[in-house]
């Protein structure tokens, strides 16, 4: 049976995007952004601090990095836990050595389960983002709207109570969303989120409850994507990060401030055989001229004031 003729009709075939979430714009058509201190490249190192439950439901899909074996998958459960017990402390040493100002995206449930780790981050004064409730609490199209509303509210409320921070940044588990997620985030005091990987700079994102800012955090440069998904070597991850740093710095000379946003995980790069590559990457990045180490909220504020200046 042939397809219905509707398959050849294109109701959204018109100027701009095929949805109303954000406006179409070429990056190069936007006004150049000036970072504080005439920096060319804002550097945001983001650490996922994640809790992967052993009793994973996998609804509507098994989260990448989660359990893959029949219950109880002690292998993956404990290997992910390794990052929060051991690897993260290697990260903290490296961050201090190279003057990094990292963001930490917490599964809210991990903040409950590991109060020592949370206090350690809070006392450092680094920025905390919400990474959902846990890695198996996915936001997805078609999920019950009340269930998601409760999930977003609980995750943010609990993380704010425990951390004492305003927590205005959000990363969904697996970077997946429902059709309502942006509205729920805006309604719960989130200013920026990092799920849409379609830009190298922040941009305004429309919701029925007001505007969010989409912040760039490329999946394609993540440790988990390159080393776990693509099975590239640790050395190749380092090369790719350094090449991206070089490229963005050069582009910034022509087009205004750029952002190197690097998402990393202590269960991956915190291993003894990988931590050296992270250190080399941080050493390389921090030794470049024109680099501004910044928290994501600082980058967002600087971008907003640059946009306001040019308005």
């Amino acid at each position, binding site marked *: *049976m*042939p*397809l219905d*003729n*509707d*398959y*050849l009709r*294109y109701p*959204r*075939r*018109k*100027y*701009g*995007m*095929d*949805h109303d979430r954000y406006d*179409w*714009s*070429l*990056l*190069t*058509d936007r006004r150049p952004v000036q970072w504080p201190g005439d920096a060319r490249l804002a550097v945001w190192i983001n650490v996922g601090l994640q809790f992967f439950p052993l009793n994973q439901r996998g609804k*509507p*899909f098994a989260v990448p990095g989660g359990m893959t074996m029949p219950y109880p998958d002690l292998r993956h459960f404990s290997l992910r836990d390794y990052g929060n017990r051991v690897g993260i402390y290697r990260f903290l040493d490296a961050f201090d050595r190279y003057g990094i100002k990292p963001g930490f995206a917490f599964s809210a449930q991990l903040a409950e389960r590991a109060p020592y780790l949370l206090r350690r981050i809070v006392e450092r004064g680094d920025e905390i983002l919400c990474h959902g409730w846990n890695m198996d609490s996915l936001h*997805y*199209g*078609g999920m019950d709207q009340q269930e998601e509303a409760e999930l977003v509210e609980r995750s943010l409320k609990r993380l704010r109570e425990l951390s004492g921070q305003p927590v205005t940044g959000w990363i969904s588990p*697996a*970077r*997946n*969303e*429902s*059709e309502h997620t942006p509205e729920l985030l805006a309604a719960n005091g989130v200013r920026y989120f990092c*799920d*849409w*990987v*379609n*830009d*190298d700079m922040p941009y305004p994102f429309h919701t029925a409850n007001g505007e969010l800012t989409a912040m760039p955090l*490329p*999946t*394609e*440069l993540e440790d988990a994507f390159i080393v776990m*998904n*693509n*099975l*590239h*070597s640790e050395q*190749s991850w380092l*090369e*790719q*990060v350094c*090449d*991206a740093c*070089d*490229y*963005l710095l050069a*582009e910034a000379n022509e087009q205004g401030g750029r952002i190197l946003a690097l998402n990393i995980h202590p269960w991956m790069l915190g291993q003894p055989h990988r931590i050296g590559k992270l250190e080399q990457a941080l050493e390389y990045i921090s030794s470049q001229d024109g680099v501004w180490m910044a928290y994501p909220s600082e980058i967002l504020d600087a971008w907003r004031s640059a946009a306001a200046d040019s308005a």
Partner: protein
Amino acid sequence: MKADPGFYDYWPYENRPRISWPDGARVAFWVAPNIEFYELDPPPNPQRKAWPQPYPALPGYSIRDYGNRVGHMRQMALLEKYGVRGSISLSTALCDHHPEIIRMCAEREWEFFSHGIYNTRYTYGMSEAQEREMIRDSIESIHKHTGQHCAGYLAPALSHSELTLDLFAEVGSELFGDDAGFYTCDLFHDDQPTPINTRSGKAFASIPYSLEMNDTIAYVVNKIEPRRYGQMLKDNFDRLYQEGANSGTVMCIPTHNYQVSCPHRMRAFEEALEYITGHSEVWVTTGRAIARHFIDNHYQQSVADIAARSGVN
């Protein structure tokens, strides 16, 4: 269903009539940027799912949008730097969505060829009339927005029917005679252009569009490290350049702005372009120009050679 699509006969690579490119070039080199539009909420096709997650499947959608918002300008500047005019495999709905991109490429005299309407609308399940209408729409869109007579085809998301090539050749002729619809990028059986049998009997060629050199196949399917991809491009060129001394070969780099134009992958691509275009005896050209040259100068001798050699001798 057929065991063999019947588009071409067996034709051994050795001892073919010599192909000579303009100015004695050994390799005809072309870059085919795929400039695509994927829909966030496409209608379902019974034979192929567009996205792995339920709507809104933003991981896949948003990285492809990155290609248009961010990546395109990078690749366009890079190709310009090395004197390459892109041959665009175009989701033709992009003429409506992002006319700025179309205008800039048209100003640079890049070639536009059809890659369907959207890369989320598959040929599977279309009737002959439906597929004909879709192909006609795409060729007319290119003409309306660029004035070009679309010469080439790459089926949307490489989704085909048994009639895809026949229909493309026929619709091209209906609209613009012999000046449209005369080459395809859908077949990967050769490193030289080859004649393709279509039911209209029109002179119609397959132009090598390497799947192996395709950045998305390399990066997404084969998960190759960027610098290794750069080395593969150079190795591919070296061998085709060497063999091109005997008879002209074709090298194509098919690209996607959401892959090759990411900051951590540009260096490998640039090094390969610099290397390839740094050689003499390389014809840096477009898909249309290669197909035209082959059809005008080598088509008849190729058809005759294939016929002469089909009986084993």
